[in-house]
């Protein structure tokens, strides 16, 4: 065979797209972690079958696998993995662009784990239809009861995500829609698996540098996707449409005792862009999640006591409200900027919407001083301690790096990138990427409050929040008149309140949609 022939053969044997990718983290902890990232998530749900990606991920474990005559059922799997710890029972995490199946097992049983769990689960799923019915029922129950009626904050956050990406494959909850979930059948699971669960679509993360172990995992997943089914046509999600002007969606709950406030618009950058880092430093100052370092938190919660917290984001933050730090393995090719004021008393909702909007506008106008930039950079370094806290996070982050194609990776390069940011870059990024005029708002409130809130949203007159009495300012009665004895810091607060009150949102009533909670997430269209 000539060299030319060898080269041709090599080309013919090469995989059509990319080969299976493995990333590792050298750790000698007693449990080895394995994470299998599939490059398909809820954005790959075919139209009308929203929930297919989530059900496929869940059914790998729940729907039995292996030999159809002697299947490994979910019960057998639970018994088999029981002595090895809770995390040995596999879990699937479905996000917009990825599904990550993750587990860990004691090092001494890793080989057995791969043979008896990892390989058959990923290459021989059975998708038992009875189990599909059960899992579907549980997901629908969560959608109808938990997400819509019990978790006012998660409801608003998910709704904003849908609204910002309206009209794109991002515009539904990762778990699916009510109608889509009802249409998924076993055939659809097989087709989705065939289309996306393929070695060239996979990145595996392993917390070990043991070459034999890595090779074994590589071989174990090599047979993924080999089932008889018609693949779906792969779709690449399109970018969200630009937002023009301001609009609001008001969602009515039957029993809310407070009102949640959200706003956002698509952001044309992700963490792999150079501009991400100066914008990140800006956002650390303006709205760090669940941290009193945040400016929004300071002015709305700390100074005025309106609510539990107020934040801003330049990337989607999964797992709110509980998570203190952004979870990993939810990468996206399209991101959005967002504002979140946690629930406030109903009567203050329109005023706080104005506050959020004015504060964002003011942040863009004034930018940050050198001192504020330095403090924000210092805070960003502190956040790193939590972002990189555990081996699990470090490994998960390497999968995200593979998704984004980041070199050095997000965490390995984090401190150097933060250090390199100049205040000039921060202020330029604020001007380039942040704006307050084209924005989608989401309000989650109680049914009987809607009319008043819409009046406040659409009004061109001042809309006030707390009054001096609410700030516990001393009052002196003189000649039948009230004299407020306002100390200087409180005077600043009152002045700023007046500025907020006089910042109309410029949202005419025709730009406000009202939707009952029960109608959200029926389909991927916003009702």
């Amino acid at each position, binding site marked *: 065979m000539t060299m030319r022939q060898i080269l041709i053969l090599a080309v013919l044997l090469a995989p059509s797209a990319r080969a299976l990718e493995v990333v590792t983290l050298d750790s000698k902890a007693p449990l080895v972690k394995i994470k299998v990232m599939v490059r398909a998530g809820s954005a790959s749900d075919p139209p009308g079958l929203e929930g297919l990606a989530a059900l496929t991920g869940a059914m790998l474990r729940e729907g039995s696998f292996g030999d159809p005559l002697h299947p490994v059922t979910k019960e057998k799997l639970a018994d088999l993995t029981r002595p090895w710890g809770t995390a040995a029972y596999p879990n699937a995490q479905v996000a917009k662009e990825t599904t990550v199946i993750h587990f860990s097992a004691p090092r001494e049983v890793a080989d057995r784990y791969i043979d008896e769990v990892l390989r058959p689960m990923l290459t021989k799923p059975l998708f038992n239809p009875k189990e599909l019915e059960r899992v579907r029922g549980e997901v629908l129950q969560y959608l109808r009861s938990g997400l819509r009626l019990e978790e006012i904050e998660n409801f608003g956050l998910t709704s904003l995500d849908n609204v910002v990406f309206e009209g794109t494959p991002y515009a539904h909850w990762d778990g699916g829609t009510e109608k889509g979930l009802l249409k998924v059948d076993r055939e659809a699971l097989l087709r989705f698996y065939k289309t996306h669960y393929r070695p060239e679509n996979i990145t595996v993360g392993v917390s070990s540098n043991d070459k034999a172990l890595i090779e074994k995992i590589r071989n174990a997943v090599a047979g993924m996707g080999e089932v008889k089914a018609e693949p779906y046509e792969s779709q690449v999600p399109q970018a969200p449409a630009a937002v023009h002007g301001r609009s609001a969606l008001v969602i009515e709950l039957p029993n*809310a005792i407070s009102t949640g406030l959200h706003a956002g618009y698509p952001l044309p950058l992700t963490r792999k862009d150079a501009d991400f880092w100066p914008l990140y430093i800006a956002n650390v100052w303006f709205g760090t999640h669940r941290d009193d370092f945040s400016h929004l938190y300071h002015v709305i919660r700390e100074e005025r006591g309106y609510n539990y917290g107020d934040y801003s984001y330049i990337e989607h933050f999964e797992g709110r409200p509980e998570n203190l730090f952004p979870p990993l393995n939810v990468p996206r090719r399209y991101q959005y900027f967002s504002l979140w004021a*946690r629930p406030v008393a109903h009567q203050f909702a329109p005023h706080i919407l104005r506050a959020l909007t004015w504060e964002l506008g003011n942040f863009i106008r004034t930018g940050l001083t050198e001192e504020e930039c330095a403090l924000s950079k210092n805070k960003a370094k502190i956040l790193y301690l939590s972002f990189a806290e*555990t081996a699990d996070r470090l490994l998960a982050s390497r999968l995200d790096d593979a998704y984004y194609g980041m070199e050095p990776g997000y965490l390995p390069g984090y401190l150097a990138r933060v250090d390199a940011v100049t205040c000039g870059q921060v202020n330029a990024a604020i001007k380039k990427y942040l704006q307050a005029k084209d924005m989608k708002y989401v309000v989650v409130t109680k049914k009987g409050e809607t009319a008043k809130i819409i009046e406040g949203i659409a009004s061109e007159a001042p809309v006030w929040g707390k009054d001096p009495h609410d700030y516990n300012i001393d009052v002196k009665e003189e000649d039948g008149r009230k004299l407020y004895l306002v100390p200087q810091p409180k005077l600043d607060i009152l002045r700023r309140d007046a500025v907020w009150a006089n910042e109309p949102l410029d949202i005419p009533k025709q730009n406000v949609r009202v939707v009952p909670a029960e109608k959200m997430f029926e389909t991927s269209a916003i009702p």
Partner: protein
Amino acid sequence: MKTLSLILALCSGWASAGAFPYPVKKKTLPNGLDILVIEMPEFKDVLSYNTMVLAGSGKEEQRGATGLAHLFEHILFTHRFKGKDGGYNDAINRMGADNNAWTWFDITYYHPLTFTSNLAGLALLESSRFKALSINEKIFQTETGAVLGEYRKVASNPSMKMEERVYDLLYPNHPYGHTTMGYYDDVIDMPKHYEAAKKFYDTYYRPNGVVVVVAGDVKAEEVFKTLGPLYSDWKAQPIPPVKEKGPEPSGDRRERVAWDSDIAPQAWVAYRMPAFKLGSPEAGAAELLDELLISPAAPLQKKLRYEKQTASGIGFDEGTNGFESAEPRAIIVSAELFKEKLAAKGDAYFDDAIKDIEDGLDALKSFSKSPGAADLLKVIQSKYRYDFLSGLSSPRNVANVMAQYYRFNRDPQALDQLLDSVQKLKPEDIDRLAQNYFRPENRVVLTLAFEPSAKKGK
């Protein structure tokens, strides 16, 4: 530099996989303050600085003023450091720290995280707010708004109401009878409780009722040298015990909770449990209850969620550690049910689910007689050990686990004793725990269902 070191950190630190892998060094100051240091040098430059106050909502004895322990957790962040309003927070933000805290029935836990180079600065700030808190009434009142916001954000979740009812029925004569958040009306009234809140601080924020746990890239001697002088002028004072004001309730108590939105129904079965005596077979057996009852391989999960499909989910309301308490507390098994099934079958559906849960708990009374009990116990002990080791994933997590168990006997070997008590269990120990406590007179059963006319309130 720091990135690399953190990654390397995870290569070591597992010298002994059989027990708690880190030495714990302890110093007790003359005023009774315990300082524990866990050296984890592989987590280079990381400083986890934790202050555990041995008082939470379980000390709130004043009626109409529930939620003060949690409110006080918030207030500690408003400390006027060096005489300046907001001075503590300002100094923390200038130094740089992730700074948060939480409150529960027995504990209020403060856990800043920063770089080791900030040890002296952080110790100064932390000692200042714990030993000599300076606040003013107006800032206190503003912060009560944030606490009210914290209540409101979860108010649409019926679990809060269920917790309020279940604790009230379990502990009508003890502060455990209300949630850590407190009743809604009390939270609304918090601005009026400045004096009561200050009294709570004066009574319970005392060095003899506090433990400081420092973990990470630190040297014990340096920590003791830095912290000792800063905390030594904090005055000790006897801490009054909380006593149950009346007899333990008795009799099988059942109640229906009505809810005002069309949510999935729930069934809760709760039992009063013993005080947690670290190292005892009883406490060891209690540690395994989640695995014996509600994990994916456990009988309740298999029966209710898989076989009969009565429930869409089953768990312990407070997670696995809810009953680890200095005084007798409770285990609460909660099941989320299906509204369609309730509509079709009515109350018989609730009765069936409750009976299955009660039967599942009762089955543990003869656990040792079930086939393969000894082998099953070994499997569960193995799982416990791996889960314990998995939890030791960072200085912050290690300090938290240490603090959680250290409080029971103030022995630095507490975690080894805990592991030992679990590994030495015999099947009969499970029987005994179940026989002694899963009794009808210790039980409270709640159901929750949508009723269009329901109104929320206290």
